[in-house]
């Protein structure tokens, strides 16, 4: 049994644990991208978000272990993903530049234990907004970029290095040029940190010029956006564009505008990892159907207490 067939069988067994969500690139037709006409198999990648390495506080007294538990949980998947993407807030913010760099070094050392061959990074405001992404770029590389993988065009949009939560005209020009060679029916996946649409501006859950990015993306028929920032799953469509927020790996936040303040959901010692988890995204053979599976950190074998390191 090859790994990909095994992956399909694994996906068919879902429903026993995680939540499966069939995503945005619906209306699939086959071979839309493949010039050769040769069959390609499905593949999957994993989204981790908002790990906030360095956070200390009552919303997660186990914060020194949570990222390590997530690494163990991903490594325990029966098949490893093609790549893992971290959609921002890798570290918790600090005014101390030396401490910021230390947190980023520690984060890199922890995720180096991931078995998956490729890791993609982008900043959240906690990583980048106090120094316009300077430390992030030194440790992780560019804050916006694109890449192609097995027939999908992926683009990373930075809406956090500007502390005012803007993408900026220069990056929007880059995005326009990056997308220009693609056909309207090309499958496109966007990674970003903040929601590109106005999910809850009252809670700062928006991107100042996100509508400009959405305007660019609306010229394409099959666009899916994965983001973080709001520490919970959320699914929304602007036109034909699907937007999916991910759970965090530090503490959950309440549903948008469901209470007066966006204070973290209080930690429950009986369920210390409730609301934390990661996401598997499987791309089918047509490259137009994405299947989302939410993996809860709570209850996984890897969620046993890990040895703490000084942090």
């Amino acid at each position: 049994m090859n790994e990909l067939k095994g992956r399909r069988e694994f996906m068919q067994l879902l429903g026993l644990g995680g939540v499966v969500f069939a995503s945005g690139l619906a209306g699939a037709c086959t071979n839309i991208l493949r010039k050769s006409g040769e069959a390609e198999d499905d593949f999957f990648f994993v989204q981790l978000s908002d790990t906030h390495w360095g956070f200390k506080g009552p919303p997660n007294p186990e914060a020194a272990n949570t990222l390590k538990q997530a690494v163990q949980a991903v490594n325990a998947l029966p098949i490893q993903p093609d790549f893992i993407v971290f959609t921002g807030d890798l570290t918790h913010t600090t005014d101390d530049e030396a401490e910021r760099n230390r947190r980023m070094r520690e984060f890199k050392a922890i995720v180096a234990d991931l078995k998956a061959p490729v890791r993609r990074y982008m900043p959240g405001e906690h990583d980048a907004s106090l120094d316009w992404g300077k430390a992030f770029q030194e440790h992780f590389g560019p804050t916006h970029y694109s890449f192609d993988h097995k027939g999908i065009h992926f683009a990373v949009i930075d809406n956090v290095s500007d502390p005012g939560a803007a993408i900026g005209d220069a990056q929007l020009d880059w995005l326009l040029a990056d997308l220009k060679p693609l056909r309207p029916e090309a499958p496109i996946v966007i990674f970003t940190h903040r929601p590109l649409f106005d999910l809850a501006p009252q809670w700062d859950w928006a991107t100042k010029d996100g509508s400009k990015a959405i305007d660019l993306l609306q010229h394409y028929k099959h666009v899916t956006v994965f983001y973080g920032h709001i520490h919970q799953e959320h699914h929304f469509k602007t036109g034909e564009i699907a937007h999916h927020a991910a759970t965090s790996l530090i503490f959950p936040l309440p549903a948008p505008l469901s209470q007066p303040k966006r204070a973290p959901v209080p930690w429950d010692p009986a369920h210390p990892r409730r609301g934390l988890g990661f996401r598997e995204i499987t791309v089918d053979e047509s490259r137009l159907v994405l299947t989302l599976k939410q993996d809860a950190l709570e209850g996984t074998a890897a969620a046993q207490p890990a040895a703490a390191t000084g942090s």
Partner: protein
Amino acid sequence: MMRGTHWMLAPSLAVILAAATSDVAAQEKVIAVTAERFKFTPGVIQLKVGEPVVLELTSLDRKHGFQVPDLKIDETIEPGKVTRLRIVPDKAATYDFHCSIFCGSGHEEMAGQIVVSP
């Protein structure tokens, strides 16, 4: 401190913001609002329907933002400058505002409300 006057213009929703002359402003109620990590003072700004008021926004430490999404207001508060907002409330309501320039750990809690009473 530089006393630069910065009159705000914004679309009319429940609160009307409009350009004004300094003569008019001199006769109107002025509320000083300070921003510092990670709070606004006062945190609740009390207004009355039909009573014009000028908010004088200043920062005590670094650059902050003053965003009132429901009123389409999003302004920067620069250290050493005064940002003035003239508001004429036209209905009783409560509007959330928050800092829109990320300013560190605690930024998420830097918020307040404008409460307009009859």
